[in-house]
């Protein structure tokens, strides 16, 4: 058994593409091996900013001959079919094929032997195929190349069983081919020249000596442990951030965490502003003090071991941060000289969408919608009006101009600075929330009204110009908006029928779809949601979910399961009869005729149904879905007995048959009033 080692060295690969590329390389090479009939035990992919690497263990050094039988056309088939068969099997003439009787006639058969031989002979083609197929999100040409790669490809290590594989990649144009070899390079600044590697273990060790940590998981651990230690030394806590950690590990081959400080003069700027500057723009980790508030220390991760111990690097990064924060502080001081109210007219200058007018027009719509929502939820109308009118005003502040990701957040700070009521300020700050499935939902009445209005306006507005999400395309994040509406309503248990706000039924259906997705993610059975949604007409999400929950709970009980079986039997019989007789459905609608109920079991079911109906109606009216379902439990015994003792299709007495079908249909109708049980999968 032998090892395959592959390394593709290039100029710096964007951090966000690295993990995916390593996985793709592994998948493509493994698929290629399988396709070539080459076995292996274990494949591991690695990635750094400059290299994709792959090691595959347990590959046999030699491939056995493989014979394969191919069945051809029937003997005597047209020449065209015969020629096709010969070509496909690689035979010169039918003399090389044999006739065989399969029991269904005589057919031509070819026995094709794929020659085995050294695995090394087959590997270059596998590698070549994988390199051509590797899907970079964005790729480019370089020099005179016709080949595309994420950034210029520099060298390739391809070793099998310690030997260099014979192969090369031709970038095309006038460029020299990149031959497979055993030579690579270390860190861009901490290592000089090239070195040869013999196998994976040697490769990893030599890279380490050349200041490259191959494994991203190890780089992450170094960053995390180093950063925690630095923080511990100055009594602050690292604000851990997996996404940032991943990115920084993708920007460094030899990560060196270092501690820097924020100038005290900037610490009264809102922490969100400091965090955006540090985390988003400079890829610093932020820290917290003992009080949980943002501390004036940060961790920057360098990709170099500087000869002054990193003093210059830290000073440089602090300086860049100072420059950015000086801007931010300037805006912070400047913006607070103007009220939000006086900024509102400025929204006329900002186009929201070419077909949907300016932000000023959008705000007008939000004010109106928020007002209607406030009426329904009982939120303070004046506060809602004010918050809605000011919610977008921060878009024309200097700070949001420079840091767009702080929209809303800054509006809240400026509102608080103006001494506007706290619920108004919070509503401005919260009106974009929730930004995702894990983001916090607004809970205060004023904030709820404005946040809902913001999203409902976006949905109805984009719907009105035909900009609906399709497949993977959702440029205006309308799915997220709908999910936000659902979460705000459900988590706050708001009794807010949606239909008056949605204008079109199509949009209500979109909500139902989103709701199903959301419920499925929460582990609710999709058929249970279906059974409730397909009743139609329900636009009160809280009531809808109460019904879903009650139904799911009921179906979990023994009574529920049995009743579902009974429902299924009743429905099947009725459906089968309806199929035979198109007019039947109309005939059997309505209650059965009591006079025609002959057997005790029939009468028992009829009276049980009456009783259930009497109990269910008030329960439904009172939205007591658990009570409504519980009432069904009494049906189970009589229905079981009915199926035991009573024949429905008494062919010689049509009026009795019809009445019994009515009875069965009544079972279905009574249960369907609570949920469409036909949607439930047994």
């Amino acid at each position: 058994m032998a090892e395959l080692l592959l390394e593709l060295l290039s100029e710096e690969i964007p951090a966000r593409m690295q993990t995916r590329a390593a996985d793709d390389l592994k998948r493509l090479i493994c698929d290629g091996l399988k396709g070539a009939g080459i076995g292996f035990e274990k494949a591991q992919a690695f990635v750094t900013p400059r290299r994709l690497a792959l090691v595959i263990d347990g590959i046999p050094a030699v491939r056995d001959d493989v014979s394969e039988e191919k069945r051809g056309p029937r003997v005597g088939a047209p020449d065209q079919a015969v020629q096709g068969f010969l070509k496909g099997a690689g035979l010169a003439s039918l003399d090389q094929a044999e006739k065989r009787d399969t029991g269904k006639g005589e057919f031509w058969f070819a026995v094709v032997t794929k020659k085995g031989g050294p695995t090394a002979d087959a590997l270059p083609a596998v590698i070549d195929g994988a390199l051509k197929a590797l899907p970079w999100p964005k790729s480019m040409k370089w020099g005179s190349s016709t080949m595309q790669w994420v950034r210029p490809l520099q060298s390739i290590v391809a070793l099998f069983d310690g030997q260099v594989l014979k192969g090369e990649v031709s970038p095309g144009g006038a460029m020299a081919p990149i031959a497979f070899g055993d030579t690579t390079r270390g860190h861009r600044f901490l290592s000089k020249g090239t070195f040869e590697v013999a196998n994976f273990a040697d490769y990893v060790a030599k890279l380490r000596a050349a200041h490259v940590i191959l494994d991203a998981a190890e780089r992450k651990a170094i960053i995390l442990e180093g950063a925690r230690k630095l923080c511990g030394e100055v009594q602050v806590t690292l604000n851990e951030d997996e996404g940032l950690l991943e990115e920084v590990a993708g920007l460094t081959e030899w990560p060196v965490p270092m501690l820097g400080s924020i100038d005290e003069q900037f610490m009264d700027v809102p922490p969100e502003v400091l965090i955006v500057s540090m985390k988003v723009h400079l890829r610093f980790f932020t820290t917290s003090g003992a009080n949980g508030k943002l501390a004036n220390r940060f961790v920057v991760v360098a990709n170099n071991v500087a000869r002054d111990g990193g003093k210059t690097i830290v000073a440089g990064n602090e300086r860049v941060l100072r420059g950015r924060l000086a801007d931010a502080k300037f805006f912070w001081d400047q913006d607070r000289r103007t009220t939000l109210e006086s900024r509102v007219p400025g929204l006329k200058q900002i186009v929201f969408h070419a077909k949907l007018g300016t932000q000023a027009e959008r705000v007008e719509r939000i004010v109106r919608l928020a007002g209607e929502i406030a009426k329904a939820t009982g939120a303070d109308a004046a506060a809602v009006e004010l918050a809605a009118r000011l919610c977008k005003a921060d878009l024309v502040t200097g700070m949001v101009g420079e840091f767009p990701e702080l929209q809303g957040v800054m509006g809240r700070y400026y509102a608080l600075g103006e001494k506007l009521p706290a619920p108004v300020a919070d509503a401005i700050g919260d009106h974009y929330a929730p930004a995702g499935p894990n983001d916090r939902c607004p809970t205060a009445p004023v904030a709820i009204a404005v946040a809902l209005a913001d999203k409902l306006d976006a949905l109805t507005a984009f719907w009105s110009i035909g900009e609906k999400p399709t497949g993977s395309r959702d440029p205006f994040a309308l799915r997220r908006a709908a999910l936000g509406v659902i979460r705000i309503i459900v988590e706050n248990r708001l009794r807010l029928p949606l239909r008056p706000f949605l204008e079109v039924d199509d949009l209500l259906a979109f909500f139902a779809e989103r709701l199903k997705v959301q419920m499925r993610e929460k582990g609710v059975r999709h058929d249970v949601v279906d059974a409730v949604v397909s009743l139609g007409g329900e636009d009160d999400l809280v009531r809808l979910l109460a019904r879903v929950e009650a139904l799911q709970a009921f179906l979990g009980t023994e009574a529920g399961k049995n009743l579902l079986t009974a429902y299924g039997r009743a429905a099947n019989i009725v459906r089968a009869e309806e199929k035979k007789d198109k007019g039947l459905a109309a005939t059997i609608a309505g209650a059965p005729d009591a006079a025609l109920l002959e057997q005790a079991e029939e009468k028992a079911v009829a009276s049980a149904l009456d009783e259930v109906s009497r109990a269910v109606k008030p329960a439904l009216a009172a939205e007591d879905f658990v009570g409504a379902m519980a009432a069904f439990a009494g049906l189970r015994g009589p229905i079981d007995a009915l199926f035991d003792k009573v024949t429905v299709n008494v062919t010689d007495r049509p009026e009795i048959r019809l009445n019994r079908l009515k009875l069965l249909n009544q079972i279905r109708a009574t249960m369907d009033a609570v949920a469409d049980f036909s949607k439930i999968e047994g």
Partner: protein
Amino acid sequence: MSNPSAARAKPTCFQELILTLQDYWAAQGCLILQPFDMEMGAGTFHTATTLRALGPKPWYAAYVQPSRRPGDGRYGENPMRLQHYYQFQAILKPSPADILERYLGSLQAIGIDTTLHDIRFVEDDWESPTLGAWGLGWEVWCDGMEITQFTYFQQVGGIEVDLVAGEITYGLERLAMYLFDKKSVYDLPFNRADSDVPLTYGDVFLQNEREQSAYNFEHADTEMLFRHFADAEKECGRLVEKKLPLPAYEQCIKASHAFNLLDARGVISVAERQSYILRVRELAKACCETWLATQKEAA
């Protein structure tokens, strides 16, 4: 790689920074060209980049280009923002295999010691909607500060390039502020401190920033500029017809600058903005196509 210049010592002022970069890139085999004598938003607009990036002929050049962004004017009050500033641009076509090493050599030449600093290549895709151009590359960070834009050109004027040019753009003021540790661009030493007449960047340009900002934002005659835009657009089209891509492209540059001024004056609505950008792009595209035809004829 040619021998990097060892003659010049580490730069100590703005003009020595330029001279050092010129020496360095000259030693790398680049033509040292002079700025294009028209107002433009970036060094990329110079014919030495936009047009020379197209066609099958190799091209190594470097030059300083005064760049005008009327909307970035701050009346000389912002220490980092200017409506007129300088870019130093090197363009190597086809991009040589060691282009990054050559670039890092230029940092060494201007005094950025890679044993002390942290140099990072951070993904940054470049696109110029007005030129119909795009490329992939990086922002180069030195201790967290962006000091260079590095781009491999893939398309110019909507045309896929024959040979890929590596474009290296240094923002000179920003780089100088970093090298000479100045908080304000106006405090940069323009020439050496030991000169007979030592002057700062502010001595040379502060008044210009004030006056030009007033012009850009308050006094530019918008009717005249709309007329200039329309005239340049028409003239460009006429010259393209005559198969004169170089004069035609100058008209495209004129139209682009008129648009930038109008934009700064705030007289172009957001909806119109897109259509003006598209009109300039159409001009750039026509010029590039005409230019390319002349290159292929000559080749």
